[in-house]
């Protein structure tokens, strides 16, 4: 009787182990297939994206060339004449030249007295008066 029980428990253990082993193998197999499928699916996705990128790059090139053609001085002049835009370069008298501020200007600005500081509260009030709809953080 005792011997029979021992044999039964041994069988159960073996069956369990076998079952676990089988499940592991099945899971590994299924995982492998799933992974493989994922690789193929991603491969297709990469291919689609590559094609889409290549197509966008081609389109970009074509548009850049079209833009260059439209911006060409020859083309612009033709269009100006075609639409009688009457565009001419400004006469020298119509150009106002501003002197480029140099280091002297920087020095002058650095030594210039600062404007008197308005208290924050007054500033806020002034803002509120001028812009009644605006919220002022105090």
């Amino acid at each position: 009787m005792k011997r029979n029980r021992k044999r039964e428990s041994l069988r159960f253990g073996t069956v369990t182990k076998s079952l676990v082993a089988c499940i592991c193998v099945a899971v590994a197999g299924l995982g492998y297939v799933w992974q493989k499928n994922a690789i193929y699916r991603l491969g297709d996705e990469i291919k689609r994206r590559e094609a889409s990128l290549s197509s966008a790059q081609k389109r970009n090139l074509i548009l850049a060339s079209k833009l260059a053609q439209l911006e060409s001085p020859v083309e612009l002049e033709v269009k100006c004449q075609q639409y009688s835009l009457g565009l001419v370069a400004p006469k020298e008298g119509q150009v106002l030249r501003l002197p480029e501020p140099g280091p002297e200007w920087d020095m002058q600005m650095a030594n210039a007295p600062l404007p008197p500081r308005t208290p924050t509260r007054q500033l806020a009030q002034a803002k509120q008066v001028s812009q009644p709809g605006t919220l002022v953080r105090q």
Partner: protein
Amino acid sequence: MILAPHKGRALIVVGALASVFMALGFRLFDLHVLQHKELSALAQRNRERVVHRQGRRGAILDANGNLLANSLPVRIVTADPTVTAPQAANIAEKLAPLLQTDVASLTEKLSSPAHYVRLNPRAKLDEDAVKKIREMKLKGIGFEDQFVRIYPDGPLASHVIGFVDHDHRGVQGIEASMEDYLEGQAGYEVIEQDRKGREIRALRDEEIGPRDGFNVVLTVDEAIQHIAEQELEKAMAEFKPQAGVIIISRPKTGEILAMSSRPTFDPTNMDAASADDRRNRCISDVAEPGSTFKIVVCSGALNEGIVSLNDQFDCENGAFMYAGRILHDAHPFGVLSVEEILFHSSNIGAAKVALRMGPSRLADYIHRYGFGHKTEIALPGEVSGIAHPLARWNSLSITRIPMGHEIAVTPLQMLMAMNTIANNGVRMKPQIVKSIVDQDGTAVFQFQPQPVGQVVAPRTCQLMTTALRKVVSPEGTAPKANLERFDVAGKTGTAQKVENGQYVRKYYSSFIGYFPASNAEISILVSLDDPTVGGAFYGGSVAGPVFRAVAERVAEYLGMEPQTPPTEVAKVS
């Protein structure tokens, strides 16, 4: 326990099974070991394919990044005649209008014995045309990726940019000289394909991507080039010369801002361009420079301290006998100072300055200014001109070379000589390529202005500028080249042409000038070969006004601050 009568049968079954397994084993051994090489190669051929990918040729850009030349992807149609042969006539009829070819030649290609043919490689198809062909669902018809070179500005700066051949290789201009940078590198992919020939992306074995060529950024400014081309076109229409050139540069750096030559060609329509049209006359044509060459003699003599601007020379009233030959001036002059010799452009005066200078010194300055040598601009087809060595000079040479005879120069060489004076005596190497950049715009190589050497002292240049300013004054030879708002220094040239070894009544009219004279920003050369209409042929009256028109527009475009303030000032409200 197996009984005796069954034992024999069992042995037979086991033996039979063993034989079958042995046979199968042998077959497996045969396939996997003995025939492995051939069979695996066969399987690989069925499964694998090598796809070559062509790198795109780099673009050519102007100084402001505007596209001057670019490569666009297109497709050409290919066919597998082993598949198309039975339906050749039908397919040809459908494709002929899209491929712009005749049905007969297409049918012939579609039924040829080859496995792969290109159907009219000249017909570059865009995506719309490809879509149309795809929709036809023709068996055995495929596509091959290629590139087509486009020039958005058409003939603008065509001599500088050049063009490519059918294999997309540069033939002329920057396309040829910068071939190594512009050319893209091909890549390849080893792919595995399914039953229908589609790639299984996940099984891609090797992948070496193509590398696009680098972009070449020029010093040429598209807008300034347009100004030069327009004004040259106007001059061609007005004076009807055989040819003409305009070059615009920055004397301080040697940068070429525009280089225009007529006759010209359209790189998008090379079939219509003759060899004569394609020649860049700015660097490939040599001619006697005429009086513009007097700057070499006078600057050399001033630099050596042999003469001063106020030294007087007797100009013999227009006829000077030397070595048994008479040298003439266009107008008779009496005694002239060196300054007057320059702005009246006296041949006799220049000859006398050269005589005082001596032949060896003159030859030395000719060499120092770079005549007889290539300027080494980054353009193919440049010639070195003709500057005979001193040993080959005859007794007349010392009086003829100062007036620009017995020497042949290219327009670019002459401009670079004038630039030397404008740049305080430092001769710069002409620069036409600014940088090489990759596709992201990162500079791979930046070209810097290259000084060649100090030819004359800055003081000499100041004296020369003083004299050359008077060339555009009312008493000079080119008052029509004067600018209202800028000080101009320049020199005219009217050189007689030589035909069959004889001087004929045909002229090269030229003007080279720079402005502002005191601090030169821009220099311009205008040269017209044999102006035939209007009776005028002197450089001052033919090339001078062209110089003025170009200079005014260039100054306006660059926003150069005028030296003379405008008389009328805009009101700012």
